[in-house]
């Protein structure tokens, strides 16, 4: 028997699948068990097939597995959809009174428990509670004290009144009693033990939102899009308690410009979106970067291109984030590798954005965004949050950054590439900026020397960040192993669990490097060269991060670059080629 239990409820969209799943996941978490949830859902409001899955263990769980132990099937299709994962000890809970289950037979060897969910729910006060009856039945099946459901039900129905809460508790008990009485002879091999641990349960989008508030984000503008909407919904109603505000923009073009405006005014500001929104935002991305405005953009990736598969997982936007937009401009890309890291990396992203005065992508992906995971609350230590605002200058420091006609220099060409920043309202700090190439004062120029100076200055910030920051990778497995597996984003947990399947004598030794910083990133040249074989795991078709790794290791090409805005000239180019070949 495994230490973990895999549970699911499935039915049509509109059947209350997600809220039932959340109630069960919370009950497990409150009972001191670790939880990892996942969702199968479709881009529709009603019908189809949707499921909420919970993997739980007393130990940490950080991936889904291909095994389902207990399934609440509200439709027959739910059974078909999960046939591959069912096994000899699996139990299916269904309501044989439903017309569509009239001719239903449980798959061979699988135990089917036919429970009158609707009738029992009506006994408790209403058919709408049939899922709760099923949860009660699960408690009996898995030997999980039913009291653990109570708090979870109280939380879910807190706004609906005492009677509704009591009815739901009663519904759960009727389900549990029915199993105890009617299936006395059925062997139920599961036992969900409880512990004294206290865990919190949250998903990646919520962790990003909480990280933003912790980091002092006061302004959010966004346009609803799956799977990033949860960030906006999390912030709405909460950020206001911290003096902040959320604007639902008319589109992503407006969202990033609203966020840009707030950032120019000095607020810590962010937007969140998914691929199609990133496409629109790329219009303004270059302006954010060239005006050297600190901004955090959360990109919760989904399957593309175009509208793609909006409710499915993919890590397909790496190239877009690294290179998107016309022209060339540095931007940072951080990719949290777990739900908790969504919190930590968001906090860090706000600091990086202000210290280096540029846009920072925080990129999660669909599975991490909608996956709920348990953590000890200490994981989110608010006292450990430090806010670093970089070269923000006040009125006393302004004069050091003015030119000889007392004009403030927002794009001063400094040794570290970072210029002073004066927020509007600062006396003596008056300045403009623009998406046109500009001089130190932020005013348009086509002077080739100034152009080159400003391009170099902007890229110098990246060099400075590499010197000052720790862009480290996370390491798992055997650090002396001959083989290297590289990952980015949410695959980390799955790879770490996969290592447990690879601990046989004949299995390869593996060193796992999980990279949360995509740009600037740790130099993996030594790690790659030391390995016999290198494998890069990512949820896309072409291996976008693999391309990046191969690019970093390759040193073959000498580059001749001209970004003055003036054509190459044949005689000068001849000299440059000669020099580079010497």
């Amino acid at each position, binding site marked *: 028997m495994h230490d973990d239990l895999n549970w699911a409820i499935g039915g049509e969209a509109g059947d209350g699948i997600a809220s039932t799943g959340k109630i069960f996941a919370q009950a497990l978490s409150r009972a001191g068990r670790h939880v990892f949830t996942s969702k199968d859902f479709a881009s529709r409001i009603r019908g189809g097939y949707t499921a909420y899955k919970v993997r739980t263990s007393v130990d940490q769980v950080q991936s889904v597995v291909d095994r389902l132990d207990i399934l609440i099937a509200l439709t027959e299709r739910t059974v078909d959809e999960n046939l591959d994962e069912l096994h000899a000890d699996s139990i299916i809970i269904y309501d044989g009174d439903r017309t569509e289950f009239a001719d239903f037979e449980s798959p061979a060897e699988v135990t089917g428990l036919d429970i009158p969910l609707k009738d029992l729910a009506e006994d408790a006060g209403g058919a709408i509670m049939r899922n709760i009856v099923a949860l009660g039945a699960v408690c009996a099946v898995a030997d999980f004290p039913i009291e653990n459901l109570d708090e979870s039900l109280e939380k879910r129905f807190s706004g609906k009144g005492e009677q509704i809460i009591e009815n739901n508790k009663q519904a759960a008990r009727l389900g549990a009693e029915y199993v105890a009485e009617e299936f006395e002879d059925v062997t139920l091999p599961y036992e969900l033990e409880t512990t004294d641990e206290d865990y919190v349960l949250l998903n990646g989008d919520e962790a990003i939102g909480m990280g933003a508030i912790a980091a002092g984000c006061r302004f959010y503008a966004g346009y609803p899009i799956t799977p990033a909407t949860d960030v906006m919904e999390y912030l709405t109603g909460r950020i206001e308690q911290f003096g902040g505000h959320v604007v639902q923009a008319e589109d992503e073009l407006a969202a990033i410009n609203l966020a840009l405006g707030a950032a120019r005014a000095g607020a*810590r500001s962010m937007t969140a979106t998914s691929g199609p929104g990133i496409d629109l935002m790329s219009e303004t991305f270059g302006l954010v970067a060239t005006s050297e405005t600190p901004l955090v953009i959360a990109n919760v990736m989904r399957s593309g291109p175009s509208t793609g598969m909006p409710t499915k997982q993919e890590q397909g936007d790496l190239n877009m984030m690294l290179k998107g937009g016309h022209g060339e401009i540095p931007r940072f890309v951080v990719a949290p590798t777990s739900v908790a890291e969504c919190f930590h990396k968001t906090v860090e992203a706000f600091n990086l954005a202000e210290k280096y005065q540029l846009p920072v992508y925080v990129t999660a992906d669909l599975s991490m965004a909608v996956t709920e995971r348990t953590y000890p609350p200490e994981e989110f230590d608010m006292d450990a949050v430090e806010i670093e605002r970089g070269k923000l200058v006040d009125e006393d420091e302004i004069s050091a950054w003015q030119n000889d006609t007392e004009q403030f220099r927002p794009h001063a060409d400094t040794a570290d590439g970072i210029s002073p920043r004066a927020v509007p309202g600062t006396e003596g700090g008056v300045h403009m900026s623009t998406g046109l190439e500009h001089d130190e004062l932020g005013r348009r120029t086509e002077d080739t020397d100034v152009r080159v100076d400003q391009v170099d200055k902007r890229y110098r910030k990246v060099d400075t960040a590499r010197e000052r920051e720790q862009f480290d990778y996370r390491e798992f497995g055997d650090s002396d192993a001959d083989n290297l597996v590289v990952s980015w984003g949410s695959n980390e947990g799955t790879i770490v669990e996969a290592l447990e399947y690879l601990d046989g004598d004949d299995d390869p030794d593996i060193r796992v490097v999980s990279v949360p910083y995509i740009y600037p990133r740790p130099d993996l040249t030594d790690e790659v060269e030391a390995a016999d074989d290198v494998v890069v795991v990512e949820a896309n078709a072409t291996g976008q991060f693999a391309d990046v790794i191969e690019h970093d290791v390759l040193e073959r090409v000498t580059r001749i670059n001209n970004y003055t805005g003036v054509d190459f000239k044949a005689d000068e180019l001849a000299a440059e080629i000669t020099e580079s070949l010497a």
Partner: protein
Amino acid sequence: MSSENVRFTDFKSDKQPTWCPGCGDFGTMNGMMKALAETGNSPDDTFVVAGIGCSGKIGTYMRSYALHGVHGRALPVGTGVKLANPDLEVMVAGGDGDGYSIGAGHFIHAVRRNVDITYVVMDNRIYGLTKGQASPTSRSDFETSTSPDGPKQPPVNPLALAMAAGGSFIAQSFSSDALRHQEIVQEAIEHDGFSLVNTFSPCVTFNDVDTYDYFRDSLVDLSEDDDYDRHDYDQAKDAILDAGKEYLGVLYQDEDSTPYSEAHGVTENMAELPDGAPDGATDLVREFY
């Protein structure tokens, strides 16, 4: 800088405008600078957002905190600035292409949000910087390089769009009527909510139809009409939809409209931050129990 000592020339930068001699934008900008000084603002506390095109250069020629943005997106930027720091006087300026073509989507939403910013559209009914193509406010028979027989579609009526979107201050001015232009912008600044000032700002190089003479001869100043009540919605609607006339003045004002800041309680300067997570942040973690 104490605002009592501010003169309008303090809002002028040391950059000489590259607008064509005689361009309407000179007068438009002068009126804006005077209105800002007259309403007690200083460059330190003023933020100008400019769009793209000839009009977009205004951020460079004025002196204040400013951002010269992406084509068509000046209004969302200005909205974000104002919400993050309500103490700033925010003025957004752009052309008819910026506001009513590429930025038309943002225009109606900025109007209905009713954030307390002033939007001056330098409307010359032509694309000037790209050397003379039809704009959304060009007449249907206006011949240009990209519309040899005219656009053959009616011009956008920005005042009607603003009214349909629930605008609380809808005005029209003329850059050459310096005094009235300044007065109208001043009223726009003083209005508590979103203010639209569509300013006829003639292009002397590419528009030989909507000229200074044309506007001088055709504009009817509503302030000279004792029977016109700018607070009367129906009267304003009739004037705004009157295709036969060009009006000057404040066509409509709803002084009782609720500005966004009041509706949403957004009144704090968001720029100041503590050194760590805000007080009460730990409660956010507890919510996930």
